[in-house]
């Protein structure tokens, strides 16, 4: 399931991971979370405790592939990190969730891809607004970072800063 030992690529670089993912089944006492701990709560758990966790710089949330980003419209700006889970890499719903956060709600925090995250999908993740990626520990980080730059040009606008080719011509 959620692999906390995995490799983190953030803002195009291999990075240390300070955030601990909390499973849906995991029971956690929020009052015992120290300011130095960084945790990512399952969305349902986060929602139940919203008054307590909203605005905390060390508490993020994660959406599963069947949990859309729509309910976060008004609150996402007070969440430091939103992770989106890919239970299998071929389930592409999370791409749209990230775009919803970035394009509709203008979310500026960290969007992290978690779960079955593969280097060969990273170019696409990035264009949809993800800026960090938790990869399997056996992935070659160099390969993964190279994949972020598979294409230097894009035909269409995305959630990154790229201008569609048709506006450049």
């Amino acid at each position, binding site marked *: 399931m959620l692999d906390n030992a995995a490799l983190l690529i953030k803002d195009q670089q291999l990075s240390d991971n300070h955030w601990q993912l909390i499973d849906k089944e995991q029971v956690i006492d929020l009052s015992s979370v120290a300011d130095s701990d960084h945790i990512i709560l399952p969305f349902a758990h986060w929602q139940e405790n919203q008054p307590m966790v909203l605005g905390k710089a060390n508490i993020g949330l994660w959406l599963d592939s069947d949990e*859309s980003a729509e309910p976060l419209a008004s609150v996402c700006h007070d969440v430091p990190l939103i992770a989106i889970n890919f239970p299998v*890499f*071929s*389930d*592409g*719903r999370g*791409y*749209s*969730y990230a*775009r919803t956060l970035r*394009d*509709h709600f203008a979310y500026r925090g960290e969007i992290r891809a978690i779960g079955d995250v*593969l280097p*060969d*999908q990273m*170019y*696409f*993740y*990035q*264009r*949809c607004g993800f800026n960090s990626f938790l990869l399997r520990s056996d992935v*070659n980080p160099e*390969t993964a970072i190279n994949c972020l730059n*598979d*294409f*230097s*040009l*894009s*035909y*269409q*606008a*995305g959630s990154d800063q790229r*201008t*569609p*080719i*048709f*506006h*450049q*011509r």
Partner: protein
Amino acid sequence: MYQYDHYDRQVIKERVDQYRNQTQRFLAGEISEAEFLPLRLQNGLYVQRLAPMLRVAVPYGLYNTAQMRKLAAITRDYDKGYIHVSTRQNFQLNWPRLEDVPDILDELASVDMHAVQTSGNCIRNTTTDQYAGVAVDEIEDPRPWCELIRQWSTFHPEFALLPRKFKIAVCATEEDRAAFKFHDIGVELIHNDAGETAFNIHVGGGLGRTPVISQLIKPNLAWPHLITYLEAVLRVYNQLGRRDNKYKARIKILVKAMGAEAFAARVDQEWQFIKDNDNTLNIEAVDRVKAFFIPHDYQSVDDQVSNERLQSQRLESTAFNRWLDKNVQPHKQPGYAIVNLALKPTGIAPGDISDYQMEAIADLADRFSGGLLRNTHHQNIVLADVKKDDLFELWQCCESLAIATPNLGYLSDPICCPGGDYCALANAKSIPIAEAVQRQFDDLDYLYDLGPIDLNISGCMNACGHHHVGHIGILGVDKKGKEFYQISLGGNMSREASIGKILGPSFSSEEIPEVIQKILDVYVNKRTDEEPFIDTYRRLGIAPFKEYVYAG
């Protein structure tokens, strides 16, 4: 046709590099079989029954003779010297080696071709009328819009892993030759009351296991919004389409489940967010693409003189006369005609041509039709700009290449998928069925008397042979390990779209020619003067056909 600039070339070059690297990592064991699957599929590579199959993209079916010659060379150097024209206007190679595919893609890139998104759960090749730009009944050339859709959908970051494949067709004519009502999105080009280009957006059509005719969800969409609206449809589908069952994953199932109205409302809600964003088209972008589709450099020809000459040539040769009647279509430019090269001679898999034929066809296109070619979803090839004065000479050349069978639109010109001879998905063979029917019905006078009949043959429920929309449809099914064939009647691909009804229990392959004969006998006995097969069927329903075919 559209010409690549350095931007397009750069994108395709980077794609080849990316796939070469992915193939190397797969062969080195760094990428698993399951992880490699969508990567190779989105580069057109299937692993088939006997060998891989590589599907080469032909955007909206249009290509030039340099590309055709390059493809011929590729079939010789990497394959077995022939190629297949698919029902989505693409080309398919049947025997490439997985290891060679990066090199093949490199060769394709040298003539501005690729295999991008010809397979996989992504947006596929956008198709349109094979007579686009020259059709008499056209409102406006649809190809610039197809090209704009091609560019937007190429490597779209959000829609690479949709619930299922996604097909878009554009129709800009009175008579529908793009089967747009059977696509995930059918874009119907119209001119609005102000005379400006606009689109009716139809969503949720498709064939496959559950054939559905699409529904209009957005009438009269102004052209600048074409791309953003399509993006809104795709974003809703990507999030809400079913992923638990691949047979229920197409957008048609979602539209049915939500209801077209609720679906349209959800799309509109999404669209409000993105309506005027950077993907919105402007006149410069559209005009730039339109400039690539300016009409052929037509010579001024006295149409009447040309017609008189054709009249006397008709009298010289019955065979030419037939070909002219059946395989040549009217052209919007006086003195010109549209020629269909028939790729369905009996004994050859429908839509297959050899490297030698490909090169000869390229020569013909250079000589007679401005160096451009089109693939049709009927699996034939079109030369769209032929001078009437050249028709006789062109016909003689076609005769010698065995691409002049005067049967376009008749029973012996079937749409047929590769079937069990090649495809790993097929339940049954389809090519031998096409051949058996062609052998049984080889008398042209009889075929002409029957009139136009669409015979569509698929080797499985995936319906690549479009069996649901054939006037007569044949579907291969597997019954306890044996191949059987189910017949349906009354399907129709045109504007009066309909889905065929199943006749009854299935038949063995040996029985098919006789069953078809019986169906035709009922038609011939019951038809009124000049009544086409489909009209007789619609008047009578399936009962008399069923009764006669299954009577002792």
